[in-house]
C-alpha cells in the first residue's frame, strides 16, 4: 500500500505567494494530506523553528481562514488544520465552523489528550458534529491503554509524535517506538514530530509506519534556500516513501 506523505506548513509562511506555491507544488510532488498550522496563542509543544514561523505570520496576517480557502484552490487533498485546543476551546464551535466553511476537512489538536484527558471524547464528539475529521495526536508520553482506546477514533489516521518537540533531535529508538505503538493500535499510523533525517524516516517505515509527517524540515529549507529548497525536501521524502510501496 502506498505510504502517505503528510506535509505540515504554517499558514501563510513565509509569505502568501510562497505559501500558496508551496501548497500547489507540494500537492503535485506527492503530498497526500496537508496539515496547516493555525497560529495558536502558545505553541507549547513545538520547537523554536515552528514557534518562530507562527510569530512571523501573526505579525503579517489577521485572517488565517481566508488563507485556508486560498489553499483549497490549489489542492484537492485533505486539509487538516492544526492548532492548540487551549487557544480555541472557549469558542470551539465557532472555530470549527469557520475552518470547515473555509475548506478544511479535519482538525488536529496536539494538546487534546495531554491537557484534556478527561474530556477528550466530548471534544471529539463536538468536532464530529461539525462534520470534520479529528486526527488524534499520541506520543511516547501517552499510556498504552489510552493509545489503544483512541486509536480507532482518529481519522483519517493516528498521529504518533516520536520526539518530545518538533524539530528537535533527541536520541530515541525510532524503530522500537513505532513497533510498540503498532501493536497497540488498529488504524493507519503516521509518524512525525522530530524525524531527523532519511534514516529516521526509513526506520519508521521499516517498523510499520503507514506514512510520515514532515514540517520543520520544510521551514528550515524555506529559511535556508527558499521555496525551491522546501520543495526539494518534499521530493526527497516522497522518493523515500515510494521505496516502501
Amino acid at each position, binding site marked *: 500500500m502506498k505510504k502517505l506523505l503528510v506535509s505540515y506548513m504554517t499558514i501563510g509562511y513565509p509569505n502568501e505567494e510562497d505559501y500558496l506555491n508551496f501548497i500547489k507544488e507540494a500537492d503535485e510532488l506527492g503530498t497526500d494530506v496537508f496539515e496547516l498550522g493555525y497560529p495558536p496563542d*502558545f505553541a507549547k509543544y513545538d520547537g523554536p523553528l515552528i514557534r518562530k514561523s507562527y510569530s512571523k505570520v501573526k505579525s503579517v496576517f489577521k485572517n488565517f481562514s481566508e488563507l485556508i480557502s486560498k489553499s483549497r484552490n490549489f489542492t484537492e487533498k485533505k486539509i487538516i488544520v492544526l492548532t492548540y485546543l487551549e487557544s480555541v476551546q472557549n469558542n470551539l464551535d465557532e472555530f470549527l465552523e469557520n475552518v470547515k466553511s473555509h475548506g478544511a476537512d479535519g482538525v488536529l489538536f496536539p494538546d487534546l489528550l495531554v491537557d484534556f484527558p478527561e474530556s477528550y471524547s466530548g471534544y471529539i464528539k463536538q468536532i464530529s458534529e461539525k462534520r470534520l475529521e479529528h486526527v488524534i495526536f499520541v506520543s511516547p508520553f501517552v499510556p498504552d491503554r489510552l493509545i489503544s482506546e483512541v486509536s480507532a477514533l482518529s481519522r483519517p489516521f493516528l498521529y504518533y509524535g516520536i520526539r518530545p518537540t518538533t524539530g528537535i533531535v533527541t*536520541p530515541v529508538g525510532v524503530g522500537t517506538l513505532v513497533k510498540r505503538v503498532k501493536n497497540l493500535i488498529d488504524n493507519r499510523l503516521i509518524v512525525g514530530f522530530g524525524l531527523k533525517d532519511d534514516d529516521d524516516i526509513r526506520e519508521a517505515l521499516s517498523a510499520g509506519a503507514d506514512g510520515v509527517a514532515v514540517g520543520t524540515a520544510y521551514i528550515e529549507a524555506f529559511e535556508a534556500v527558499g521555496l525551491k529548497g522546501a520543495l526539494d525536501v518534499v521530493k526527497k521524502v516522497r522518493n523515500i516513501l515510494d521505496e516502501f510501496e
Partner: protein
Amino acid sequence: MIEFIPRYWYNIVPDLSRPLPPPRDPEDSNFSRIELLNSIIPKEVLRQQFTAERYVKIPDDVIELYSLAGRPTPLMRAKNFEEALDTPAKIYFKYEGATHSGSHKINTAIPQAYFAKEEGVERVVTETGAGQWGTAVALAAALMKIKSTVFMVRVSYEQKPGRRTMMNLYGAEVYASPSEITEYGRKELRKNPSNPGSLGIAMSEAIEYAINKGYRYLVGSVMEVVLLHQSVIGLEAINQFDYIGETPDVLIGCVGGGSNFAGFSYPFIGSKKGSRYIAVSSSEIKKFSKGVYEYDFPDSAGLLPMLKMITLGKDYVPPPIYSGGLRYHGLAPTLSLLVRDKTVEWMEFSETEIYEAAMLFARTQGIVPAPESAHAIMAAIKVAQEAREKKERPVIAFNLSGHGLLDLSYYQKMEAK
C-alpha cells in the same frame, strides 16, 4: 543472591492512567532546552528518558557493577521494631544503606557514569544536597575510571564534612554551592553572601560548568530516567518477597525529587501488588501541602526544560533542615501525576517527629537511618499504629534509602534539644 538483581528496569509511563505532560520551553523562549540536553546528558541516558518501553534492558556490565556496589540490598523484617510498636502489622524494610555509597543513589549513578564513559567522556559533573548523590557519583565515576566534580549545597557542605571527605576519597572535586567558580554561583553570592544554597542553585552551577567545559552532567532525581534506574530497588524487592512468599500491602518511601520512593514503589504499582503507596516529605518543606501542580523548571537558573510537576517554585529557598535530600522544590512528573490522581498518598513529618522514629528504629533494629529515610520510618509507625487501632494485620514495607552514619552531627544536635 545475585539472582535477585533484575535484568530489566521498569518504566511506569506506559502504565499511567493519563498522559504525562511532556517537557517544554517557557512561552518567551527562543531556543530549545530539550536540544540543550543533547549536549550535557549522555545520549543513552537521554534515550531512556524519552522511552516508551515498559522494560529497559540493564547492560550486563551494569549488573556486575550493581553487584560490586552492594546489590542486591537486604530485604529485612523489623520484628523487634514491630514488637516495640505493639502492632499486629508485619513491617519489612529494603535496606539501601547497605550499598557501598550508603544510599540508593548509586543505582542510577552507575548506569549514568557507564553510559557517559561509553561516549568517551573524561569527567562527569553533578550537584548534591545531603551528599548521598554526590558520593554515589564520585564512586560510580571512580569505578568507571573517569573524573567527577560535585557542587554541594553550602549548608550540607558545612554540616556534613564526612560526606565531603568520602567524595574526596573516591576522587571527586567538591565545591560548596553557591560557589565562585560559575557565573550563576557568583551571581547568587553577590545577592546574598551567606546564601545557604539549594539543590536548584547547585544544579544550575553543575549544568553551567558541564556546558562550558564540555563534560557530561549526571541527574540525581526528578527526571524519569532516574526513576527508571531506581526501579531496580522495587524489582529486586518483588523477587525477594516472592522468595519468602509474602506480598506487601503498604509501600512507603521518603520523597525529595521522588526517585527512591518511585524506584521502590513503581514496580509494585505496575504489577498491581500492594494497595497503599505512601510518599513522605518534611513538614518544614511542605511540598505536598503547599506545592502547586504546574510547569516549572527543575533547576533555579531555568536551563533545563520545564516539567509539569508539584512544585514550590524554582526560586524557593528551603529552610536549612538537616534532611538535605528533601529540600528540593519539585517532584518527579510521573509521581506528581500519581499523587494528583490519588494512586499515591502523602504524609509530612517534622524533624522532631522523625528524630523519635529514627531513635526507636536504631534501638530496636540497630541501624542508624539517614534523617531523610527516617521520614519513611515515621510513616511506617503511623500505619502500624492505625493497624493496631483497627485490629488489622497489613504487611508494611518501607524503603530505608540510606544509613545515617555520616549524619551523626544531626543526631547530636537533636539530642541536645
